[in-house]
């Protein structure tokens, strides 16, 4: 099969597109007239093939236009109106629930206030409930001591003197080891630290509170032994 040159075919197709009669095109390219004739028959077959294709139904176009109009109608609505009703109701309720939840359990309120202060060593909640009035007084002694120690600038030396083995008391030893800040005196004696009433050393206060707990525990032990 003789293949026609691209340049001839392109030129012939251009002439055909311009509306030139086919016979004139064949005369223009006599060396390729046979091939050109076959090709132009093919183009006619292609046009015929297109006419044979069953056209689409009008309902298809109507459906497309209807969908397009529906899309346009939705787009025109305010943004809130496009949100489903269920979401519009549930979303604010959910937001309120979150606020309430996080507001109730904020970090500043919960833990320390809910935990009761520790009782005397070795005691159980049941035992404490069964205890008598003298025990109740002893249980509040640490709290009482704490209240007394906090507002007062001077420290009670009597509290320390009531504890027997002062020398072996680690809290007392700590107090002795830590010199008062404004005195700058490295040598620390328990009497020296507590004779000066102008100071309110936080570590000294903490030690005093610890001592009071120890004292209360020892007193209870003595009471139970006597009973």
């Amino acid at each position, binding site marked *: 099969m003789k293949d026609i040159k691209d340049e001839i075919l*392109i030129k012939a197709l251009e002439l055909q597109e311009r509306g030139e009669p086919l016979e004139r095109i064949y005369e223009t390219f006599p060396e390729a007239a046979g091939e050109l004739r076959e090709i132009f028959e*093919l183009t006619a077959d292609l046009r015929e093939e297109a006419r044979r294709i069953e056209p689409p139904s009008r309902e298809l176009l109507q*459906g497309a*236009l209807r969908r397009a109009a529906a899309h*346009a109608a939705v787009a025109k609505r305010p943004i809130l109106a496009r949100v489903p009703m269920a979401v519009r109701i549930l979303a604010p309720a959910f937001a309120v629930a979150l606020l309430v939840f996080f507001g109730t359990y904020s970090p500043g309120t919960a833990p320390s206030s809910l935990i009761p202060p520790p009782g005397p060593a070795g005691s159980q909640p049941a035992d404490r409930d069964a205890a008598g009035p003298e025990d109740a007084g002893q249980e509040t002694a640490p709290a009482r001591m704490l209240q007394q120690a906090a507002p007062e600038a001077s420290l009670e030396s009597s509290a320390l003197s009531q504890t027997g083995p002062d020398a072996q008391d680690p809290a007392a030893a700590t107090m002795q080891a830590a010199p008062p800040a404004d005195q700058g005196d490295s040598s620390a004696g328990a009497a020296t630290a507590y004779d000066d009433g102008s100071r309110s050393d936080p570590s000294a206060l903490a030690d005093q509170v610890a001592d009071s707990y120890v004292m209360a525990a020892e007193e209870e032990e003595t009471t139970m032994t006597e009973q």
Partner: protein
Amino acid sequence: MDNWQTENMKGGDFEELYETCFTPVFRYIFLRVRNRAEAEDLAQTVFLKAYQANPSPGALRGLSLNYFFTVARNTVIDHWRKKKEILLDEPEAAFEAIPDHETPEDGAMRGEAAESVREALRYASQAEQEVLVLRFMNQLSTKEIAAVTGKSNAAVRQLQSRGLKTLRRHMKRKETQ
């Protein structure tokens, strides 16, 4: 094509839109995807997209057939991509690897003569098929085809020439068998 655009599109109504735009676009898509159900769906998509891009009343009547064909071409490419049968990034390269989706029912609807032309068309490359379909089956000019496909006039003529030579070669082979 020019007289179609100036005369037939003026004062268009539904019938005009159907005859002058919808049917040619459907025909083009059908010949590209070779499946009638898919072609109907895609043709609707083309007009939906055109309406969404031009939502003012009567805007569709003012759009050229070139515009619809451009949207149709892109819709067909997107359709093939979504089917995940082509994993290439280049649309033109993707165009080259389109498989044949024609169903037996579609094939039975064609006559014998048409069957040979349609069958021969498959032997051309996708780019050549597209040019032949637009030029000879949808009656677009070379300039309009260049605008729709994004190719130069010379490239369109080249594809047209090669596509026709491929068709002729195949038809000759079938005659000798």
